[in-house]
């Protein structure tokens, strides 16, 4: 959206945050897709985010071609199968077999668990999802899976309830989330802005997650002004927007100033465009 600048018709038009970020994001592409930094080899996570943010069919086609035989999306490094972008890719794909296979992969691959351990307290009954196959569950990949199921396969109640249970189990004292552990060696870990925003994005408009959302919002309101990195701000904006909270306006203003500096990496940039533009509706779940 363009509108006259504050000085009237002779001054350059003010461009919206979405326009600015989308234009920069579009310039960062590598062929049809996106790498983690401008011009880098394409990868599933930035491509999925950009496909949603820009409503980009070429990026979606690249994603489809990048789907692995097991339905997942990610990076492979020898025996390490990172499948953490699978939830995001499912959200980016149009209805069809590819999307369903991505969701089937998530159903089949919850995280690995360890026995109960007072040093790292956790409930082994709610494994969540990990960054890589065969490893422990963490907040970000679990929230992605939660959102994908809620939007695309709402009948997957076992998975949805499990993801909410994971987020409840790993909630920090006072609300919000660290990376996934709530306490280590009897020390409560603090919440982080980016991971708290991630949890809120997964939980927005979910009745069973209401208490978690309240605590998360309190934490995020404290954290985003202090942390203020581009990815934190972008995901905070997405979270506040999805929750319908007016905090989004202040975050958007901060992001606008961020774009005046060095260009963020492509993942952060895609989240800015996604959070500030029409693509956010692709992440929204009706109450």
């Amino acid at each position, binding site marked *: 959206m363009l509108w006259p600048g504050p000085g009237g018709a002779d001054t350059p038009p003010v461009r919206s945050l979405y326009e600015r970020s989308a234009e920069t994001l579009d310039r960062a592409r590598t062929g049809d897709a996106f790498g*983690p*930094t401008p011009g*880098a*080899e394409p*990868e599933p*996570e930035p491509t999925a985010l950009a496909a949603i943010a820009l409503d980009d069919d070429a990026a979606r086609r690249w994603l489809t071609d990048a789907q692995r035989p097991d339905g997942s999306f990610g*990076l492979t*490094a*020898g*025996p*390490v199968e*990172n499948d*953490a972008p699978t939830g995001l890719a499912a959200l980016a794909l149009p209805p069809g077999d590819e999307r369903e296979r991505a969701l089937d992969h998530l159903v089949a691959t919850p995280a*690995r668990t*360890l026995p109960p*351990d007072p*040093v*790292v307290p*956790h409930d082994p009954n709610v494994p969540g999802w*990990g*960054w*890589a196959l*065969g*490893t*422990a569950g*963490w907040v*970000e990949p679990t929230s992605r899976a939660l959102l994908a199921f809620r939007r695309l396969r709402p009948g997957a109640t076992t998975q949805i309830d499990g993801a909410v249970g994971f987020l409840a189990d790993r909630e920090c004292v006072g609300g919000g989330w660290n*990376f*996934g*552990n709530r306490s*280590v*060696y009897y*020390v409560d870990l*603090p919440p*982080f*802005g*980016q991971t708290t925003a991630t949890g809120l994005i997964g939980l927005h408009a979910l009745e069973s997650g209401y208490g978690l959302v309240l605590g998360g919002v309190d934490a995020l309101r404290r954290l985003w002004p202090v*942390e*203020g*990195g*581009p*990815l*934190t701000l972008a995901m905070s904006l997405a979270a506040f927007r999805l929750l319908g909270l007016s905090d989004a306006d202040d975050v958007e203003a901060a992001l606008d100033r961020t774009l005046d500096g060095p260009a*963020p*990496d492509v*993942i*952060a940039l895609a989240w800015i465009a996604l959070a500030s533009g029409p693509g956010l509706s692709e992440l929204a779940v009706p109450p």
Partner: protein
Amino acid sequence: MDRRTFLRRAGIVAAGSAAVGLGAGAAIPGLLRRLDRPWDDDAFPPLGRPKVLVARVASYDVDLETTVEEGLREVGASLAGRSVLLKPNFVEYDPETVINTDPRLVAATVLAVRRLGASSVLVAEGPGHRRDTPFVVSASGLGERLGEVGARFVDLNLAPVTRVPLHARFTELGELWLPAPVVDADVVISMPKMKTHHWAGATLSMKNCFGCVPGRIYGWPKNVLHWAGLQEAIVDVASAVRPELQIVDGIVGMEGNGPIDGTPVQAGVLVFGTDPVATDSTAAVVMGLDPAGIWHVSEAGRFLGQADPEQIVQVGEDPERSMTSFDVLPVFEDLKTGPDGGGDPGAHAGLGDANA
């Protein structure tokens, strides 16, 4: 063969070797382990008699640039005409404590390395606990300090990656995908904070190499490495990164529940070295810990570097006379009292945290 060529050609040897990894969290009795030699002998030169220098440095307000330059000269650093990557520890940021390598030391090292003739120098880190690297760089003050000395920072979590086959196989990883800036640098200088570590006993120049492993593949907080066996992964990753130089920031270190939730402790030292095992072994002594009881130091001392104090040439202060006894968690109390400590190398590995 230079370092880049070595890393890129590494696959030739690795392809002909059987994997002898230990799996996630496995604990093998020490005696049996001694029978294993899970590394390629011809990929590692014979252990020598490396120089290590312990320098007494009371604070970050002294002339750190000269201190670092002299320290590197004393241990025989050769940087003229070579590209240098500084790898400090910025795993996350907390203003209340001392998680990170001090930014003043990093900036001083940039200047010292230039004085020593390096063709280029960049500073790089892949924070393990934060995806938002610009936040860590800014909030910690590193960005401002690097701006003052005109140094570039690279986020190793996002940099292009190169496959590096492993010549050590304490884990079953077999290979690592490391950031191109790490692989391409002529010299990597590991610059850890001197800290205790709640899973590994201590985190020094070898453990600091976890920050070279990109989060977008191995996750945040690099949990794949913990499932592979934390102490085993420290050895494998360090033997892949092979930091040619080490500068341990022990001016103010961290004791107790390190590497994140510990307590600042004024140790008043910098430790310089050209062998990560010798440097970490010496730094452990400075911390009042028995290096023979730190599993990854002990194991790496079999092939990667020199862990035998009798074979390490101390060219600075006597490490024992420079000792500040770091508090440790009860599980590592034996490190302070006996030679056979070190605990279970796989304990709590699966839920552990990252490159701190």
